[in-house]
């Protein structure tokens, strides 16, 4: 069968299956299980309506269970095993003892401190500066555009920015070209400078996430009642006082949501590190460490343990984020 035809058949079967499921399950509920007829018509209708939401929820719950809940439980179980036998927290003990894990953990904290703060700050700055100017929307689109690039694509772009060629030859990396031109010194392998190279990797994520922060914060800034700003003008506040004492406090809730959302992205950061340094030169992070354990060392136990650590770090922030987002919507 032609692949296109195959795809069409799959789509038809999937969509048809969904429709058939809803039609048939409701039909069985209304006609067979609790028919709205006879002596118990009223009671049956009520019972059918109690069950109906679950009919609609069932497919989603089933797939979420299969693809989200089960893997979490299975990973947790796997992290307690070694070579198919239960070893308690042995994997965790081994992992904590590894210097590479410590390095990953430290780097993740570094990412956690720098990236959300920088992205939110740049986003807020961009949102405020592009507000109410004629070409603000064009500027916003340009700043937002990196969001549309995959992390790997962005990494390739920035790898070229950090590229170093032998001294004396033309530098194709933007940073080295500038560096050599300004200082006259030899080009630097930026990605091999310990500690600094972490920062160079973070720049990629900041570049991507600032656009996201800007869009959300720009909308929030627009939502500030204009009168409060005018009242502040009459009260004698200058532009900085208006920004920091009137505008920012009014969008504090949104700033927190943006901050925590980026924090979650940061904790999961993997692609950028994999594509740019693969954790060499002391740039390892937890997600890439986990990937190393799983798919390079084929150590399922320690890989799972690393995964559990990442989840443990993300969960509280995620809960807080959802709680904040809900409060914002009210």
């Amino acid at each position, binding site marked *: 069968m032609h692949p296109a035809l195959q795809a069409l058949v799959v789509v038809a079967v999937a969509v048809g299956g969904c429709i058939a499921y809803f039609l048939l399950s409701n039909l069985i509920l209304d006609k067979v299980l609790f028919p709205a007829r006879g002596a118990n018509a009223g009671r049956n209708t009520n019972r059918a309506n109690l069950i109906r939401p679950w009919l609609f929820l069932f497919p989603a719950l089933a797939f979420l269970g299969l693809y989200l809940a089960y893997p979490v439980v299975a990973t947790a179980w796997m992290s307690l095993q070694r070579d198919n036998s239960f070893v308690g927290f042995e994997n965790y003990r081994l992992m904590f003892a590894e210097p590479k894990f410590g390095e990953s953990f430290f780097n993740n904290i570094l990412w956690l401190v720098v990236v959300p703060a920088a992205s939110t700050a740049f986003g807020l700055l961009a949102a405020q500066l592009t507000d109410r100017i004629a070409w603000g929307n064009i500027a916003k689109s340009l700043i937002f555009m990196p969001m549309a690039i995959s992390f790997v694509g962005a990494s390739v772009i920035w790898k070229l920015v950090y590229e170093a060629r032998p001294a004396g030859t033309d530098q194709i990396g933007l940073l080295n070209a500038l560096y050599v031109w300004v200082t006259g010194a030899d080009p630097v392998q930026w990605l091999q400078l310990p500690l600094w190279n972490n920062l160079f990797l973070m720049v990629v994520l900041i570049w991507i996430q600032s656009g996201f922060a800007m869009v959300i914060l720009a909308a929030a800034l627009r939502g500030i*009642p204009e*009168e*409060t700003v*005018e*009242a*502040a*003008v*009459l*009260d*004698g*506040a200058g532009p900085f*006082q208006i920004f920091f*004492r*009137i505008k920012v*406090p*009014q969008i*504090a809730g949104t700033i927190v949501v943006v901050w925590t959302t980026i924090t979650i992205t940061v904790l999961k950061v993997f692609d950028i590190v994999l594509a740019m340094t693969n954790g060499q030169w002391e740039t390892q992070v937890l997600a890439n460490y986990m990937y190393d354990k799983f798919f390079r060392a084929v150590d399922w136990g320690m890989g799972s343990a690393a995964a559990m650590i990442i989840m443990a770090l993300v969960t509280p922030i995620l809960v807080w984020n959802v709680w904040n987002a809900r409060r914002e919507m009210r």
Partner: protein
Amino acid sequence: MADLVLKGVEKAYGEVKVLRDINLDIQTGELIVFVGPSGCGKSTLLRMIAGLERITGGDFSIDGVRMNDVPPAQRGIAMVFQSYALYPHMTVRDNMSFALKIARKSRAEIAAAVDKAARILQLTPYLDRLPKALSGGQRQRVAIGRSIVRDPKVYLFDEPLSNLDAALRAATRIEIAQLKEAMPNSTMVYVTHDQVEAMTLASRIVVLAGGTIAQVGTPLELYERPRNEFVAQFIGSPAMNLLGGEVVGIGEETIVRLDGGGLARSAVPTMTADKGLRVNVGVRPEHLRETDGDALFTGEVAITEALGEVTLLYFTASEGAAPLVAKLPGIRPNLRHQTLSLTADPDKVQIFANGTSLLYR
């Protein structure tokens, strides 16, 4: 102490002039009310005085100092916004002290000013609350308090009562009147579209229409001697009746033969040249009374509205005459579908030619 002078003030957005040739002298201690229909430019004029809108022509000065290019905070004004414009993230106390903090006043000074204002406005128990925990009336008082603490020369009010319900509006109106009493030396400019507010609060009313001043005067001047048909119909409720006619008798007392057939006598004097002039006779509904003699108007009552102390009578428009409204004392619902003859005292009858009152030519 503040005298405000507007000389030929204009506001243009590109080609469109929304305000033209505004000339106004406001003296210390006055409470000036800008009234007018929606879009007449009254709020824009207030915002120009505040400095929130640029003045595109003419001169505006406070106490003789030209203010066109002075930043809002240095004009010595304070403004109360329609939407209160409280800072939602600050407590009542912080809202009221913000301006003083910006001005780097001492802590003790700020606390004293805020406590005093809170006492005047009965806000003391609410000082540590956020605006969202206050009722509409309390929020409006906080907004007023925020103005008071700055001790400005000029208070500006932009429709401060329009977000309040009817009962609260009346109460807050009286509070503002009392506030004015307590501060006889402060100048206040007040924008509203509610003529009751205008009539009760104003020392002088400025009626704006289509971007120009239609008339400036005390509330009673505007009521008794409107300069033109616009002011005549804008002030007073229901609006003044305008009846077309022709001047037939001149002198100290003018006689107009109305198109509806009646005769109107007016205390507005006319000259020989006025004989045969096409005019509109203006009579307020409350000045019409029943008569057995010469009628100004005779017609059938279409609808009655008994309001208790008065009854409004709506007459059907007869041939060649506009529909007419009369306000008779007492409860008179039985007048429905009756034919009634009405007249009015000559000194209550206005005459307008080409829209302008003959009193002002």
